[in-house]
């Protein structure tokens, strides 16, 4: 599928902390054959509430329908979708790089410094670079390092985590209205 025609949306879903909800959420995507680009789950700042951060390409109309169908699930508290402007986003990536190739290609080290990455482990064979930043930064570094054949031995991204830039805490407000102690 041609991804560049569509927008990358970030969905935030708040749910009760019980087993089986991940399956219910992902099935909304599967049903529409929307590929999940990344998914992160962790406890939220609210006791007993889990937070899912999901990224997927799509259009606004489809995302509206997807979040409504996710929010329809009994144990889902709230679901919203955002574009990147509405969120403070971070991703972490790990690069396992060939040490000889890194040493023989100074442009590789320069790219890592430029992307504010740091080398955390080094031996004769490989080194590990950790890069934290926006998706664009991380992908730019990955593409640059891949220009050196066989330099990137392994690469993994954490997927996005995000907090909203809004001054309203909607989920807390909702639970408060439901008479719940946060």
């Amino acid at each position, binding site marked *: 599928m041609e991804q560049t025609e569509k927008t990358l949306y970030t969905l935030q879903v708040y*749910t*009760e902390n019980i087993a*089986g909800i991940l*399956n*219910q959420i992902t*099935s909304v995507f599967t*049903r529409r054959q929307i590929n999940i680009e990344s998914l992160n789950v962790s406890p939220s700042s609210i006791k007993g509430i889990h937070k899912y951060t999901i990224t997927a390409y799509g259009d606004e*109309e489809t995302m*509206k*329908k997807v979040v*409504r*169908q996710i*929010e*329809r699930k*009994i*144990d*889902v*508290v709230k679901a919203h979708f955002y574009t990147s402007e509405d969120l403070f986003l971070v991703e972490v990536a790990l690069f396992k790089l060939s040490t000889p190739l890194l040493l023989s290609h100074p442009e590789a080290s320069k790219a890592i410094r430029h992307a504010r990455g740091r080398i955390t482990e080094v031996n004769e064979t490989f080194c590990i670079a950790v890069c934290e930043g926006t998706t664009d930064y991380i992908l730019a570094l990955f593409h640059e390092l891949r220009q050196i054949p066989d330099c990137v031995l392994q690469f993994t991204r954490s997927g996005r985590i995000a907090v909203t830039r809004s001054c309203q805490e909607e989920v807390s407000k909702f*639970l408060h209205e*439901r008479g*719940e102690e946060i």
Partner: protein
Amino acid sequence: MEKITGAEALMLSLKAQGVKTIFGYPGGAIMPTYDALFDYTRGEKKAFEHILVRHEQAAAHAAEGYARVSGKVGVTLVTSGPGVTNTLTGVADAMMDSTPIVVIAGQVATGVLGSDAFQEVDLVGLAQPITKWAYQIRSAKDVAWAVSRAFYIARSGRPGPVVLDFTKNAQTEKITYEPTKVDFIRSYVPYPEPKQEKLKAAAELINNAKKPMALVGQGVELGNAQEELKAFLEKADIPAGRTMLGLSALPSNHKLNMGMLGMHGSYSVNLKEQEADVLIAIGMRFSDRVTGDVSRYAKQAKIIHLDIDPSEIDKCVKTTVAVVGDCKVTLPALTALINKNDHSEWKESFQPLRKKEIENVITPATKPTSGPLLMGEVAHDVAKIGYELAENQGKIGSPILVTDVGQNQLMSCRYFKFHDKRSIATSGGMGTMGYGLPAAMGATYGAPERTVCCFMGDGGLQMVIQELGTIMEYDIPVKMILLNNNYLGNVRQWQDMFFHKKQSFTPMTNPDFGQIAAAYGIQYHRVSKREDLKEAITEMLTSKGAYLLETIIKPDMNVEPMIAPGKAINEMQLNVEC
């Protein structure tokens, strides 16, 4: 306090929910529950009637039929593995048509879960996409909470099915039973508060409309808002079309009823929908059967959508004003804001189209003067005679229509008459063949004071023909009308229309249904001549107990009018030639 098993805790929990009827089929993994059930269906502890069906799919459909006509939650009890997978068609059907049922299934003991144990299946995994909630009870102490939560979820807001997976060890372990009531789940808002600004915006559109039209769906029945609907329509003089599932939300003879929406609905209703300037959709979901080609559906109209489920808004059709809430609340709130009005000229404009349909379709279908029997005339006569008899017999409520799926469904929905609320049980969104007979069985328990008329084709009946055994055993007074044309009629129609008449596996060779009925000890009559029809129907409807009336129908007839697939609703064909 004496400790009881999880199975007995289930009995007490169901009793606390007011359950009176359970449709089920025993098996290995649910045996402890059936052991407890035995004492609760007789003697001093008697609380329930349990109906032993002949296939678990029928148990699910029976629970659906029970729920549709009574408004209560239907209950199904089955075993693990193949037992519960047999109910999943009914569960999916209930999800699609928003019918409240709770399916309780046995499951292997927690210690062997995931080991491919005998009759083990991942029920929660299978059921999650087709239920409001699916939960595995792994400990007896969770029974009371799980059952209460299950019923609360099934019946509240937009109703739907819930599945409980009851592990064997949870059924047998002993606990001190503590009654539990769940009527609040913090993440679940079944009755959203309608927004005042939306009500005002909707009222303004309605007050300024020159050609308003209401689209009435099952939501009005689910919300028990039939009187509120009438008050709303009558105040602003708004003509209304009903969806198939909303057919009895407004009586057939109400002055503002213009007919049925959708693919095989009323001609005038479909054409006028494409002329209306304001459409007010009430408890309906703009199914593709109703909209036809959605890219060309009612583009001229402002659409007001009243629905309890926020995920329905803009799902299929772009809404101008959405009023999210229970129509029992939103309808009177809207009625208070709208002006009294008169739309005589607009309503009158339906009449020439209605007249055209009467002349070209309805009269030939319901009052033919020659040739073999037609489905329409059978449905029309059953409804007419049934209503007259109900009045004479002092029955509470007119006959209920239950249908299977296909031409039998479309023709009986078109030509039956609906006088009272909750008078129809049919498989709409899923179109499940085999729904009719078991749903009719369930309907007789849900509305024992009313006559239940079950229209089926020869295909649909044979999907569930084993349920004649259930009918025999419990003397269930279903009036079964078999519209036999020796075809899978609706598929045959589409093959004739769209596949160059290549009738691929639609003709069927059928048995002697009379002999089958006799083997089950069920009263039976076969009628093929017009002059015998009314007497045969009267005999069926005045007889005691179950009755199978087989009508020999013209084989190559089409349901008309029709909106062909991909067409706009104003491209509805009045006649569909064979």
